[in-house]
Structure formats: C-alpha cells, structure tokens
C-alpha cells in the first residue's frame, strides 16, 4: 500500500497492523550451540539469505541443530552489527534480526563484507579489497 502522506492512513488500518514477517524469530531467544531447536532451520535460512553461512546447501537441507557453522554465522552477524559477540541468540541479536531490512546480502559470495564495527579489525574479501577500521 502506498500512502501519499502520513495523514492519509486510515485509522482502521493502524488498529489492525499485522505482525512483521520475522517477529516469530524472537522465540529463539537464548538458543545456543550444541542443542536442537524446533524450527531453527528457518532462522538458518535467514542467515544464509544474507550471506552468513558460506557454502551452505539449499535452504531445504538445513537442520534444526545449532551447530558450529551456525554459531560462526551468529558471531559474524554480531560483529557486523556492532553487537556483543556472544555466539548465541541473545536478546539484542534477535531484536536486530527482526528489524526490517534491505534484501541485499551483507556478505556476497564471501567476497564482500560489512566490517567489524567499532573495534580495530580487518575484513578480507578475496584479497582484492581489504579495509581497516579505526575507531575515533
């Protein structure tokens, strides 16, 4: 729906706004490596969609296991979004996950990466582009 102005939004629509597409991911708060969680494969699909699971099989093959590869994906995600790098699905991470976003991947074919935020770090991208972040 396209509203030319904020004031043109009917009141009845405002009172019946549907939940966001990814709100259910908040149910995974607290999940961590080594366990199996019903439906976690869907969250793996999200991380795969945005480039955080390199060399992943097709999304239909994801398991519900919180495995090493998924923990690495969570860590990279947390770095990119300047979150505490905990490696598990803490509250701050999932609140970031459910935010509306651009559909372009953060890491594309493993060759382009958002950098690691506020700390000094180097993000490699197939040895042709490399950035060094410096906090000020």
């Amino acid at each position, binding site marked *: *729906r*396209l*509203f*030319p*102005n*904020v*004031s043109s*939004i009917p*009141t009845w*629509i*405002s009172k019946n*706004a*549907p*939940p*966001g*597409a*990814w709100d259910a991911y908040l149910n995974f708060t607290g999940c961590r490596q080594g366990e199996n969680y019903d439906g976690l494969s869907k969250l793996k699909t999200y991380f795969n969609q*945005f480039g955080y699971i390199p060399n992943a099989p097709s999304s239909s093959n994801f398991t519900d296991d919180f495995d090493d590869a998924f923990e690495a994906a969570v860590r990279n995600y947390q*770095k*990119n*979004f*300047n979150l505490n790098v905990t490696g598990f699905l803490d509250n701050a991470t999932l609140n*970031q996950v459910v*935010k*509306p*976003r*651009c*559909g*372009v991947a*953060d890491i*594309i*074919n493993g*060759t*382009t*990466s*958002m*950098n*690691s*935020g506020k700390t000094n770090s*180097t*993000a490699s*991208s*197939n040895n*042709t*582009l*490399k*950035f*060094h*972040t*410096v*906090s*000020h």
Partner: protein
Amino acid sequence: YTFFSEMQRWPEGTQELTYAFEPNNGLDDVVKGVFSNAFDRWSEVTTITFRETTSYESADIKIGFYSGDHGDGEPFDGVLGTLAHAFSPTNGRLHLDGAEDWVATGDVTASDLTTAVDLESVAVHEIGHLLGLGHSSVEEAIMYPTIGARTRKVELADDDIQGIQVLYGSNPNFTGSTTTSSRENDSSNGF
C-alpha cells in the same frame, strides 16, 4: 562503507543515469517526487546526475513495486521483513516490496501505523546499491542494512559520502566536509 565484489561501478565517464518507473504500477507525481529527492541526495555529493525518462525499457535504472515472487529469484516476504532490494552496477533494477505500508511524505515517526515505512529512506539506501555501495556497519550510515518502521533516515552520513566519492569522485559544488573519516583503507593492500 563497502563495495560489491570487484568494485562494480558504472563505466568511467558516466555523467548521467536515466531512471523510469514500472508502467504497471501507475505511480503518481508524489511518489515519483520522493525518488527524485532521493536521487538528488547522491547527486549533491558525487559526479553523477539522474534524469527521469518515460522510456522504461531503455532506462538505466528501472524502479518498481512488486509482491512475493516477482521473477528475479529474490521473492518478497510480506509486511516488514525485507523491504526492498537493488542490484549492483550496471544492472539498474530497484525493487520495492508492494506489501509494505509505504509512506511517501510527512512525518512517518508520528504515524499510528506500526508497519509504516518511509519511502524516501529506503529509496536513498537502494540507490546506494545501484551506484555500487554495499552495506556498512556504521549505524548512522544510509547503507546500514536495517531501518525500523516509522523511522526516517535520509541524510547521507560521512561514511556514505566517502564511499561514493571513492567510486565516482566528488561533486565540485559539494561543500560538505568528509575529512573526518571513521574508516580508513588498509594501505598495505594498495587500495
């Protein structure tokens, strides 16, 4: 700021890009004006200008609203979630999720609708992709990947300006300062 792989950009010497809207969307002048403003934000800081054309097929940049699977392998997902996507140079496609509650003008932050999304904010971000910028981890940057509903963020941050000026140089009339860099290139890589 980051770039797409191999620093994809529009060809050297590109001074103007044309853009057109999906004819089947039937967008009005208010909506088209939002995109015009969004393009202007990038033109102000770099060397490329943008001009609307009615010739959709021949336009460099093609803008359209689509829902669900719309044929490019990147289906939209309904309300919120993925809002839009754009392709790297020189593809030129900018797609917005037709399921969103897009607000063209006015103070979206004052909206009672919890799913209201500011159109210009998303347009400015996606134009960055069309020009060759990837996502940034700088939260203030336009190229940061997420934006909340009922949020307006349309001003280019230093991070965005520095990135686009690496690709295309600075608009000679740009008077803003980008000397305070929050990110430096690793000189050891000769970039």
